[in-house]
């Protein structure tokens, strides 16, 4: 356990020293500023010219979900970017040789890096998603239900992307690994839409295809979960399936959440196996 923590600490220090953490932080603050200003002026508009048909909280919800969508995207990107060179870079540069010849288990290296990255992603999610929600609350007084749960899922989306990138890094070059991770993200994203449109036109093949791609990259499907979670039950009852641009046609199954948890641990086991059995 000591070694895992040492490696995790090293991993966090690396992203700090290589300024990935600072760039992430800076971009996150920039995003929050833009979101805050935008949110303020839109709400201001509605306060000046109230519309009887659209309550403010519906506007607030729509904007918050739009904000969180960007946060989710950035978190997944961060998950890929911090992990992309983690192993492949050290293998290519031979840095790994002086590490794995120490009296430690190779599994401890994988787990330590995973843990370090997970901490970074957690902080990032908390800053961005938490900041977005705080802005919405402070300006409009609106708080979505299940907010903590929603944040947890966004965190996990980043973790999924990061863990997939780690397993790739045990065998692939940095470039190939990065390409693969982004392509998988693309597949998950398109798969989500295919499933949605398939459901709209009741095309089962399209739905199955979408589900399959969600099994490979279960991030977009988790995003639909978040929409359902954050939308107050009263709005859902009135036939509202999410704010206009984020309509959820095919409601994701609960089993997908469970799957996403097991998926990460299965990937992690795979990464340990792949790293332990390779030559340097």
């Amino acid at each position, binding site marked *: 356990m000591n070694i895992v923590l040492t490696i995790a600490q090293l991993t966090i220090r690396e992203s700090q020293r290589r300024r990935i953490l600072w760039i992430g932080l800076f971009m996150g603050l920039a995003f929050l500023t833009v979101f805050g200003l935008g949110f303020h002026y839109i709400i201001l508009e509605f306060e000046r010219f109230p519309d009887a048909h659209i309550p403010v909280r519906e506007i607030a919800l729509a904007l918050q979900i739009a904000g969180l969508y960007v946060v989710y995207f950035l978190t997944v990107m961060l998950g890929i970017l911090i992990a992309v060179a983690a192993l492949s870079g050290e293998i290519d540069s031979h840095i790994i040789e002086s590490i794995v010849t120490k*009296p*430690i288990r190779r599994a401890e290296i994988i787990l330590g890096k995973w843990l370090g990255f997970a901490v970074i992603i957690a902080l990032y999610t908390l800053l961005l998603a938490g900041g977005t929600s705080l802005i919405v609350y402070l300006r409009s007084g609106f708080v979505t239900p299940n907010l903590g749960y929603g944040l947890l899922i966004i965190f996990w989306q980043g973790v999924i992307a990061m863990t997939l990138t780690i397993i790739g890094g045990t065998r692939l070059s940095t470039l190939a690994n990065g390409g693969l991770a982004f392509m998988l993200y693309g597949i998950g994203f398109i798969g989500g839409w295919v499933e949605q449109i398939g459901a709209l036109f009741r095309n089962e093949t399209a739905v199955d295809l979408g589900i399959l791609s969600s099994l490979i990259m279960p991030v977009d499907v988790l995003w639909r979960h978040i929409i359902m979670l954050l939308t107050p039950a009263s709005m859902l009852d009135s036939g509202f399936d999410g704010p206009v641009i984020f309509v959820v046609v095919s409601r994701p199954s609960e089993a997908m959440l469970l799957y996403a948890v097991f998926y990460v641990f299965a990937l992690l086991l795979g990464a340990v196996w792949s790293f332990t059995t390779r030559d340097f």
Partner: protein
Amino acid sequence: MLAIDTVGLRKEFGEKVAVADLTLKVQQGEIFGFLGPNGAGKTTSVKMLLGLTRPTSGRATLLDHPLGDRLSRAKMGFLPEHFRFQEWLRADEFLDLHGRLYGMSQQARAAAIPDLLELVGLGKRAATKLGAFSKGMLQRIGLAQALLNSPRLVFLDEPTSGLDPVGRRLVRDIIHGLREEGTTVFLNSHLLGEVELTCDRVAFIREGVVVETLDLHDTHTEQVHVTLRVGQPTPELLVALEQFGREVAMDDGRGRVSLTLPDESHLPGLAHWLTHNGHTLYELTPRTLSLEDRFMQIIGDHSGDT
């Protein structure tokens, strides 16, 4: 107890046989040189011994532990051939990290790190980031990393390849210091002059096979190269000299004859025979073969055709 004991270690990379048969015994406390041409399989051998690369077949024990035993690595040190380290760490942080990985306590690390930095000549560079280090400085800090845990067995893969003459002398002194403490050193090197000065024993590897081992202290059994100058070298003389040694040859018409004796005990007999058979002897110069001569003899013609 043997420091290293391997039987038939073999490593294949697909079709390519990198190491065909590594069978070696290295005594505790020995400074052991591992020599061979480029691509002979030296680095691959070391990587197998350290568990970086899994052998295709064969077995080995290190410090009486089976190959790949994790905890036994706490008593080993390793300087890789490609010494690259985390550029964003300071020299002292780097050593502290490796101390942790060795499982050393906070006190042990704090005690060892300044001394080691001093030992490798980086005492004033403790707070410098490794990214700002020169090649030789990186190799020095790598060496410090390999010695941090006061190992019983150290693997150095070409430890002086990036070093200036002062640094080479330093490594030689460090190895002598290790010998005094009874540490076993396994040294890969192409610098035969240094190997001759530091090693107790050497093994030659060619195309993945250990072809010969030599005890460098045992000068009595070493071959001797002799140059003779006699009054009238005749073809008969050349034939007669074959009874004493090999590689009998006439040197470029100036009356010199050269030959190689199995060891120096044959020298008096040779001088006696020459004078008693009516040859006027003007010169008899024995020269023991340098390690480079031996390398050329053993490896010479075969290198480069792999």
